[in-house]
């Protein structure tokens, strides 16, 4: 489900080729010019992004997955109701943190395909059960991507019984209890290890790589950030609400395809994700894409400055989402008009982020439709 794109490396050679045969003094290298912006401090923005947005996100996610793994280890070592509740709470915390961590699928996360390992849903219950009954789990198999990560743990902690008492028996008296505990432990350990790996890379050499790719070409940090931000935002819009609400199936709804279907925190996650995307856009309190867009003369179709229009649309979409309630899977069935209205506002923001912003910044969106076969 989770599609990934790869903008990890660079197409500079093409630009260099075009540039180097042209007359000297033609200037306006797309790698340095940056659309119609004049003198925006891109390096400063990257600095702020890495120090105040990206690394804090990975740090918090690493902490959350460490806590989740500890809670699950405690639970599987001696399962009881309190430890189950604690593990469930730890999963929710990790899932919420993931929503402001998924935006950076380039560099170390891109290399490791982090997102598809963390958040592929709907989770494949059949594959999970096969892995339990066979007591084998190979984390390297791509076939297991839909049977691991937060959605699989969501199922194993919330979805295997009508209430916590029943769920608890799956880890105590059930015939497969031992195997189930083993798998659950492996899944949380894998999440923790992968989170630590990405954080280590960012705290190590990758940060300077990121800071030094100051252009706006395909492999630049700004180029990668925008591409991944838009990609991740489309994931929010499509997978977290659109597809379950039937926007891609002529109205046939798929409530079971929401994120965190079993723990029923889908809307909470959606709002956290929208905030995460907004934080990347604004760079929180420091230099962000908002400042970058504002440094250009770009206008929205209604004539207002593009940055103002984007910020306004974030607020509008958020307000619409706040009219919904969890479980979103029920809301999709009982309140489809409001769900569709929220989706429509998210869709407007897509156009701004995917078309207007990159165009204002001279950044190329490199992911797109596949060849269709």
């Amino acid at each position: 489900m989770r599609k990934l794109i790869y903008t990890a490396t660079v197409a500079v050679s093409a630009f260099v080729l075009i540039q180097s045969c042209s007359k000297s003094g033609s200037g306006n290298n797309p790698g340095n010019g940056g659309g119609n912006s004049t003198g925006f401090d891109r390096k400063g923005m990257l600095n702020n992004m890495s120090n105040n947005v990206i690394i804090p996100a990975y740090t918090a996610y690493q902490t959350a997955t460490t806590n989740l793994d500890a809670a699950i280890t405690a639970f599987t070592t001696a399962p009881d109701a309190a430890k189950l509740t604690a593990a469930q709470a730890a999963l929710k915390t990790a899932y919420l943190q993931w929503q402001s961590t998924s935006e950076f699928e380039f560099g170390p996360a891109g290399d490791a395909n982090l997102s598809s390992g963390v958040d592929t849903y709907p989770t494949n219950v059949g594959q999970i059960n096969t892995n339990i009954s066979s007591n084998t789990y190979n984390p390297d198999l791509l076939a297991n991507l839909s049977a691991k990560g937060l959605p699989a743990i969501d199922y194993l902690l919330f979805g295997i019984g009508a209430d916590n008492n029943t769920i608890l028996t799956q880890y105590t008296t059930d015939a497969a209890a031992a195997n189930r505990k083993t798998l659950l432990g492996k899944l949380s350990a894998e999440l923790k290890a992968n989170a630590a790996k990405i954080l280590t890379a960012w705290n190590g050499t990758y940060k300077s790589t990121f800071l030094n790719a100051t252009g706006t070409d395909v492999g630049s940090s700004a180029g990668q950030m925008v591409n991944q931000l838009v990609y991740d935002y489309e994931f929010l819009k499509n997978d977290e609400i659109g597809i379950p609400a039937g926007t891609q199936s002529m109205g046939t709804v798929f409530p079971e395809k929401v994120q965190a279907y079993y723990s029923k925190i889908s809307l909470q996650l959606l709002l956290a994700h929208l905030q995460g995307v907004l934080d990347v856009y604004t760079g929180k309190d420091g230099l962000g894409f908002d400042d970058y867009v504002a440094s250009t003369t770009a206008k929205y179709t209604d004539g207002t400055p593009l940055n103002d229009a984007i910020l306004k649309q974030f607020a509008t979409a958020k307000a619409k989402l706040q009219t919904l309630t969890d479980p979103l899977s029920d809301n999709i069935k009982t309140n489809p008009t409001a769900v569709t209205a929220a989706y429509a506002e998210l869709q407007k923001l897509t156009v701004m982020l995917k078309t207007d912003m990159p165009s204002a910044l001279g950044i190329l969106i490199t992911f797109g439709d596949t060849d269709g076969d």
Partner: protein
Amino acid sequence: MKKTFTVLSMLSAVLILASSCKDDKKSNPAPNYTVPTTYNFTNADFSDATTRLGMVTEMSNLMKTALTGPLDGQTLKNMFSNTSSPFTGAAAAYNTSGLQLKDQTATLFQTDASNFIDSLVKVSKTGTPASRGVAGVGASSASPASKYALTATGVNYAQVFNKAIMGGLITYQIVNNYMTAGISSSVDNTNVVAGKGTAMEHNWDLAFGYWGVPVDFPTNKTGAKLWGSYSTQVDSGFKANKTLIDAFLKGRAAISNKDNATRDAQATIILQTFEKLTAAAALQEVKEVKESISDNIARNSRLSECYGFVYSLKYNPKRKISDAEIDKILGLFPKNFYDLTLDQLNAIRDEIAGQYGFESVKDIL
């Protein structure tokens, strides 16, 4: 690591360019003829190539029936050799065209094609849903309307065939025939046949026709198919569109103006570009595999496309890559496609990229 690639690729591009700029000045004095900007040459006729590409499309379309029931393998083979009037409907005219695919393909491909078809027919007859160890038809988990016929090891032979024939027919004809023997000194370039030009012009035109693009490509991309489609798909990282259209236009103008040196130079460019394009297309499929990485059925089908492209290099008699190297890349594919790991996929990508100098663009092709 990446930064190193970037810097290296920039440097190498600059170096290559610096030298090629010089070459342009030295060896290419201003031509005394005009190279047009579209392939609207007088007497250009590549309808035979277009017909053959149409036959390929008919075969691909028939293969889709493997998704809904037993596939008629005999008709497919008849289409390949154009025997027993296999084409129907709007394509019925192909039956009497006097043209066929089989006698234009590499010998190895003729054997392979038959095997690919047989394998697909076998899958189509199982009537079971595809899963690991079970041949049958499976649906993409992301978009269930997309279905694929996969063997028990996850191979989609419809796609292997579709990609292999791009090498076994199109690339084979271009590199082994039209860009070599087709423009040799023994080929007539004096007598103009009305509507077809000289024999040499006609050969060049057929090669252009096999590329599968409109005459005003890439400004107009309507109807671009097979290599014409892939040269566009990989264009973000490998500028095959411009390279090829420039070379085809320049070479054709050169033939009409008896400028053999320019003609040969363009033929070399075209010949080499088609091999690189094959590698770029394989990398493009790696990217698509990653885009459907958690979608077991769709992922296997895309991996089959990648496999088909790599395998098709074997049909190119002018290839730079060695047989051992092709086999090495093919050996990186898992025995069962359902068992693919990210490391294996990246190893396939890196090996192809390394062979063809695509390191810096391997993820964006």
